């Protein structure tokens, strides 16, 4: 029984990682209706920036917020410079740009910071919260950060004019433009926010999985499974999905299918959700009148 609880809690901890990545995916999907394949690499790159800042002597939280700001601006810049020209191009063109970005970020990170793993400091070192044998302080801390980001997003979209404008721009670009919303800038802001959330996710993940250019490669896949399971257009659902994937993966891996098929769980989830219930557990069913 104790071993089982261990697996569940350890699954929740990794689930928190998937959840924050899923949140970033949802963010971009909500504002652009695309899945950004380079999301993970962008997050990794931001984390490297944070690492470099901390190495040069900045305090953790200064580096943290500086990195989030850099992520925000960088994400917007990418949308303005690279994606705006292909805004009206077919979806495949966009996908190619995403994959190009993935390769560029990955190899640039390797080139600048090399491929050896780096320890990344945690803002919640041992003893910050009640360390139990099930959870480390960092794991509790990072789950709290994920939930905090979720609440902040909810408040932003629900109660601020800018959030309202962003939702409008995503749902009905033409009408939004007519009432004076700058739709194109809203897309850029969506990219910026997604990159910023990715940066937070990266900084929360790095103390657990260690920082290297391929840090997010596996995580993005699980995050994607989580986002789809919860509903790709629902932040709450995505976070829930992330946790479910984390626990499911651990429990199934340890007791049912063996560790060799853990990744398969995520892939089966993706295919299963897309074929049986494409909107996910909590997604909105879009009905179009024809």
């Amino acid at each position, binding site marked *: 029984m*104790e*071993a089982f609880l*261990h*697996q569940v809690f*350890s*699954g929740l*901890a*990794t689930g928190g*990682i998937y959840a924050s990545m899923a949140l970033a995916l949802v963010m971009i999907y909500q504002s652009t209706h695309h899945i950004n394949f380079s999301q993970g690499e962008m997050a990794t790159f931001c984390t490297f920036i944070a690492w470099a800042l901390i190495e040069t002597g900045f305090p953790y939280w200064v580096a943290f917020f500086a990195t989030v700001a850099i992520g925000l601006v960088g994400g917007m810049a990418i949308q303005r410079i690279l994606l705006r020209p292909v805004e009206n191009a077919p979806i495949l063109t966009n996908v190619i740009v995403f994959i190009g970005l993935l390769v560029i970020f990955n*190899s640039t990170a*390797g*080139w600048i910071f*090399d*491929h*050896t*793993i*780096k*320890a990344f400091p945690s803002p919640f070192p041992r003893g910050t919260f009640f360390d139990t*044998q099930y959870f*480390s302080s960092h794991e509790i801390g990072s789950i709290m950060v994920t939930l905090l980001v979720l609440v902040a997003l909810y408040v932003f979209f629900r109660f601020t004019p800018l959030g309202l404008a962003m939702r409008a721009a995503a749902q009905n670009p033409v009408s939004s433009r007519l009432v004076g919303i700058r739709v194109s800038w809203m897309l850029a802001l969506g990219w910026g926010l997604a990159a910023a959330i990715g940066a937070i996710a990266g900084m929360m*993940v790095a103390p*657990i*999985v*260690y920082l*290297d*250019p*391929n840090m997010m*490669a*596996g*995580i993005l*896949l*699980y995050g994607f499974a989580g986002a789809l399971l919860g509903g790709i257009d629902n932040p709450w659902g995505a976070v829930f999905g992330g946790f479910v994937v984390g626990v499911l*993966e*651990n429990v199934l*891996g*340890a007791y049912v299918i063996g*560790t*060799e098929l*853990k*990744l398969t769980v995520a892939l089966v989830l993706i295919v299963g959700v897309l074929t049986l219930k494409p909107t996910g557990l909590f997604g909105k069913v879009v009905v179009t009148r024809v």
Partner: protein
Amino acid sequence: MNRNLLIAIVAAIVVAVAGYFVLAPKPEAPAPVAAKKYDPGASDKEILIGQTMPYSGPASAYGTIGKASAAYFAKINDEGGINGRKIKFVSLDDGYSPPKTVEQIRKLVEQDEVLFVFNTLGTPPNSAIHNYMNQKKVPQLFVATGATKWGDPKNFPWTMGWQPNYQTEGRIYAKYILKEKPNAKIAVLYQNDDYGKDYLKGFKDGLGEAGQKLIVSEVSYEVTDPTVDSQVVTMKGSGADTFFNITTPKFAAQAIKKAAEIGWKPTHFLNNVSASVASVLRPAGLENSKDIITAAYLKDPTDKQWENDQGYKDWLAWMKKYYPEGDLANSFNVYGYAVTQTLVQVLKQCGDDLTRENVMRQAANLKDIELPMLLPGIKVSTSPTDFYPIESVRLQRFDGKEWVLFGDVIGS
């Protein structure tokens, strides 16, 4: 006409017989004309050697080995070369991508016409060219990987490894456990691929039929897994008190840290692949890494006990002169130095017979060679049936700051 012919025949016989008596009594003497024999890539002036290395891509940390080799050849050339011939060393980037390796190696063999390739790095890249090299009969010498399959002279007479192979290392840990902890309850974590299974096989072979019952938990992970936390939890739950950790650096660090976090303190054996203090133990936490045991065969350049050792001092002087941008704490630079010295020994033995066949013959004819940066007591030995140059190691334990050697040299 007939008389003349007869005289000619008699004369010929006389000359032949006389010649026989003049030459025959000393069959051991070297041939009067120096029998310089060359294959493509060798000449009176130089020896052309090829290599692929991951100078870019995910395994680029290993690239420094190729740079160290080049720096050592520079030193050899400054000192006049080997038997009067300069070394020309062409080391190309393959990015650790097997298709790229094949392309580069074909270029080296067919276009540049190298005499042989040396210390190509990585199990997947070397596997990709294994058959090609043996079909072409071009030596694939001292490959930089610990897989066991490189020592198979019967089926692959043109390929040879160098470092202690994974199975040997696994067997050595098993022997140690049987001797020191015969009632151990062992948990094994391994990477689910050729590398992990190679170690596991050696370990199980070493434990033997009876010993395998000591393994209470055997879990694997995939390189795509974000963490191995769940596996560590499973192993702790099995009640194991001994842990054999067959993982690459990132996962090794994760496992060490997670074990400490959940309060699992087994006797911890870590494979040599991840024995780096800088890139594994420090990220995992030096305190968490205390008392981990691993096998070693090279002198660690950061280890204080070699400070006044002549071998180390020579290495340091060479680094400063020929590879000043190299990292003095990086043991890969020791590896590159030692493996290149082994090759230089082979080429010295070749003399003026620089055919591919003779290169292989001499590589398989190393007799107890001691290299300055190998741990004392560890020797390089090969024979036509033994294609594993280094087959012994010493165990060392981490004291929280550095590795401390203990016990004698252990062979498999």
